[in-house]
């Protein structure tokens, strides 16, 4: 046939060739259409153990598969996925468990190929028996597991851990066959591992069949197969005396097995001596002699050559096994490292996602001169969004200026310094773009990058400030109290002294006067202590919140001050409307009581002293007021009025707590109180708000 003539040309002969291939291929070949097998070849039929292709055609692949695949995924789901992948990518290769005709499962390596040239969507299916592959995989896994144990120094590795006996058997058989010697592999103590290859009748059927003979053979094998670093051990066997050679299989310094060959004789062999052995072991001399003659003859030279080859093989095997162990260890190590890494990554990811502090990873952007000009947000955790309210667009450039809407990237100098020096830096800042206070730690995981870990401390700072203010108020309070309690005490002690003197002199007028001072001072202390107690109770709102009309609570207050104001001829005018409020009734009564008391106290000598209680409505709230036409208040003193112990008029009664009490009560109910006065002689007006106060209807009559 001419070289340049194609044996086939397009047209029927080519299709015929493919048809032949289809029919004769050892691999299964099928066509899927619409998810059903529409054609298959004989190999496919026989792989599944069916008799006829009608058992496959018309069926869905799921019909010849178990419900779930080996990894637990339902076959239905996985087959959908694989077919979709084939249609999408063009082809797809995977291992699949099919069900044979006899019900058993079979591993098949499947290749799906999309046949897009046809009008319909056909998928070609190729099946290859994957039993071997799976077995090898399994053996490797087993070996790796075994080697895991091998890692522990206490456990002894043995031959079976590292070698597949069947494979070794094959090698051994082949070697023996090729060279014409007998061969066997034993454990170091001589116990056979493999089946004997090419054993002569003498050894196999005669000598080894006797107890003594067998034991001697093993001992001999052990001896001859012992570790020898550079050369095989070649010598007559210690049992029968035939020539033997042995090489050890040593892995990682451990003698795992002995590979023995031999059972040959040469011209040096002393037949007589050999026959003696028959007696030793108690074998039939006739059979012994017969078998002996069958023992192959081989020159010593040849045998030694074969032995050296054996040595080479055994060394190679040992070396490979050793490398295998190393490799397996490495693989195992890598797997462990990977697993550890994965779980570590998982942990960190979990931490990253759930931690309450915001974390943001950034990259510094440098200009051509190497100067930091901006930075980009690379990654943020959910807490970042919680704190800042900002979400990082997944595909944006995410420059700081963009994210925060500023002209300059905030804190660029601080951040870029950390990014270049690697030195961590912590500070607190007020972040203008977000109007909140943050406590920030900046670190640099690698040069040019920085990460911020921050916490919104706005609330904490506010609380701290409040706490500090409270503390200051507390210490002012304590100071004031101790001072104001000490003062009357000085009076009492001193005047007691004077009293003693007065009594001696019997000076009645002075006695009276001095007793007066003492009494007053004692009263003052008592009152102070009472009011202090009241003040401390205010914060705790010990009384239940009740609903009441303003009229009721004002009347309560008026009842209480009635005695005090009776003598002063002060007119009380109630001009408030029908108002309803919820609060601590006795405390609110105290508010009015104190304000009325105050107003009455600071009345001048005018003929028409008037205190008015009313309400106003401003833009958004209801305001209650208590107005008087008394002596008024100098504007300079207005700020200090509600301060504790700030008395404007020292000569009058009262401890100076009254207005502080009023303030406290109002504030506890959520309102605020303030005073206005146009100046001395112009009266004053105290106003306060009371959240929740409601106007019911019309003004009440006076």
């Amino acid at each position, binding site marked *: 046939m001419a070289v340049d003539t194609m044996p086939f040309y397009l047209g029927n002969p080519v299709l015929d060739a493919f048809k032949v291939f289809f029919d004769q291929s050892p691999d299964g070949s099928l066509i899927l259409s619409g998810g059903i097998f529409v054609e298959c070849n004989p190999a496919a039929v026989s792989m599944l153990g069916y008799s006829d292709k009608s058992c496959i055609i018309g069926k869905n692949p799921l019909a010849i598969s178990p419900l779930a695949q080996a990894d637990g995924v339902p076959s239905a789901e996985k087959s959908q996925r694989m077919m979709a992948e084939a249609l999408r990518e063009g082809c797809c290769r995977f291992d699949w468990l099919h069900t044979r005709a006899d019900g058993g499962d079979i591993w098949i390596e499947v290749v799906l190929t999309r046949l897009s040239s046809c009008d319909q969507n056909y998928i070609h299916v190729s099946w290859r028996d994957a039993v071997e592959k799976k077995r090898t995989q399994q053996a490797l896994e087993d070996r790796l597991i075994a080697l895991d144990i091998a890692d522990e120094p206490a456990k002894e590795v043995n031959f079976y851990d590292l070698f597949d006996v069947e494979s070794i058997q094959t090698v051994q058989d082949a070697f023996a066959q090729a060279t014409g010697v007998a061969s066997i592999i034993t454990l170091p103590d001589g116990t056979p591992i493999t089946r004997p290859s090419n054993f002569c009748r003498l050894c196999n059927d005669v000598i080894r069949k006797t107890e003594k003979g067998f034991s001697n053979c093993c001992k001999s094998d052990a001896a001859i197969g012992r570790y020898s670093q550079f050369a095989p051990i070649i010598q007559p066997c210690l049992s029968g005396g035939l020539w033997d050679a042995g090489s050890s299989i040593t892995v990682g310094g451990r003698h795992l097995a002995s590979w023995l060959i031999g059972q040959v004789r040469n011209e040096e062999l002393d037949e007589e001596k050999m026959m003696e052995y028959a007696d030793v072991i108690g074998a039939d001399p006739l059979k012994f002699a017969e078998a002996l003659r069958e023992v192959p003859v081989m020159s010593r030279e040849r045998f030694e050559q074969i032995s050296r080859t054996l040595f080479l093989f055994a060394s190679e095997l040992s070396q490979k096994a050793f490398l295998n162990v190393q490799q397996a260890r490495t693989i195992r190590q890598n797997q462990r490292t990977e697993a550890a890494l994965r779980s570590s990554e998982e942990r960190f990811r979990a931490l990253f996602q759930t931690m309450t502090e915001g974390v943001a990873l950034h990259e510094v952007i440098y200009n051509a001169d190497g100067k930091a000009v901006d930075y980009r947000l690379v990654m943020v955790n959910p807490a970042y969004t919680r704190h800042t309210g900002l979400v990082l667009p997944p595909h944006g450039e995410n420059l700081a200026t963009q994210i925060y809407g500023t002209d300059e990237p905030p804190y660029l100098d601080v951040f870029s310094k950390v990014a270049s020096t690697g030195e961590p830096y912590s500070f607190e800042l007020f972040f203008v773009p977000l109007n909140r206070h943050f406590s920030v730690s900046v670190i640099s995981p690698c040069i040019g990058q920085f990460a911020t870990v921050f916490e919104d401390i706005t609330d904490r700072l506010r609380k701290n400030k409040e706490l500090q203010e409270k503390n200051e108020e507390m210490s002012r309070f304590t100071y*004031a109290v101790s*001072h104001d309690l*000490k003062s009357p005490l*000085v*009076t009492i002690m*001193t*005047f007691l*002294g004077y009293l003693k003197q007065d009594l001696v002199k019997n000076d009645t007028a002075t006695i009276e006067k001095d007793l007066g001072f003492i009494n007053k001072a004692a009263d003052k202390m008592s009152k102070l202590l009472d009011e202090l107690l009241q003040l401390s109770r205010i914060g705790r709102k010990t009384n239940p919140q009740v609903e009441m009309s303003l009229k009721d609570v004002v009347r309560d207050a008026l009842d209480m001050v009635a005695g005090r104001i009776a003598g002063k001829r002060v007119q009380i005018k109630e001009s408030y409307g029908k108002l309803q409020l919820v609060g601590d009734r006795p405390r609110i009564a105290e508010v009015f009581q104190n304000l009325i008391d105050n107003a009455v106290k600071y009345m001048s000598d005018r003929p028409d002293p008037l205190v008015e209680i009313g309400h106003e409505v401003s833009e958004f709230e209801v305001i209650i007021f208590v107005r008087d036409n008394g002596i008024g208040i100098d504007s300079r003193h207005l700020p200090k009025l509600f301060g504790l112990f700030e008395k404007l008029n*020292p*000569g009058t009664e009262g401890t100076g707590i009254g207005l502080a009490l009023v303030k406290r009560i109002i504030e506890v109910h959520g309102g605020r109180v303030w005073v206005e006065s146009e100046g001395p002689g112009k009266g004053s007006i105290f106003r306060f708000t009371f959240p929740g106060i409601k106007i019911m209807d019309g003004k009440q009559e006076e």
Partner: protein
Amino acid sequence: MNGEPITILLVEDDQAHAEIVRRNMADFRVANRIVHVEDGQQALDYLFRREPYADPQFNPRPSMILLDLRMPKVDGLEVLRQIKDDEVLRRIPTVILTTSAAESDLAKAYTYGVGSYLVKPVDFSKFTELMESFGYYWLAWNRFPE
């Protein structure tokens, strides 16, 4: 030292305490006259010769000032500060006589330049002793400028 009684301006809001000082100083052998005002505002008005203390004849400039601290309207320390701020008034020796032993008050008082700081004892004999010593030191031993 001539025979004229020494005028002491007593700035004290507590009547009883003022009475104590008055009684003690009245007994003292060095003639003295107590002018008593009840709060810081009055003290300043007196010293700066404002109404109703404008007339120098009825309101002689004091040779020394006894000052209480915690007073309404204008606090003792504020009075002290204003006194020391004034070129003329600063020459008048000031002694604080108060119940407060607070460090902060002490520090501030001396920062402003008070002459001495006395704490009222809670004990009759001690108070008496204090006032005697005070009298001795300031009225008997101490010299006042003209």
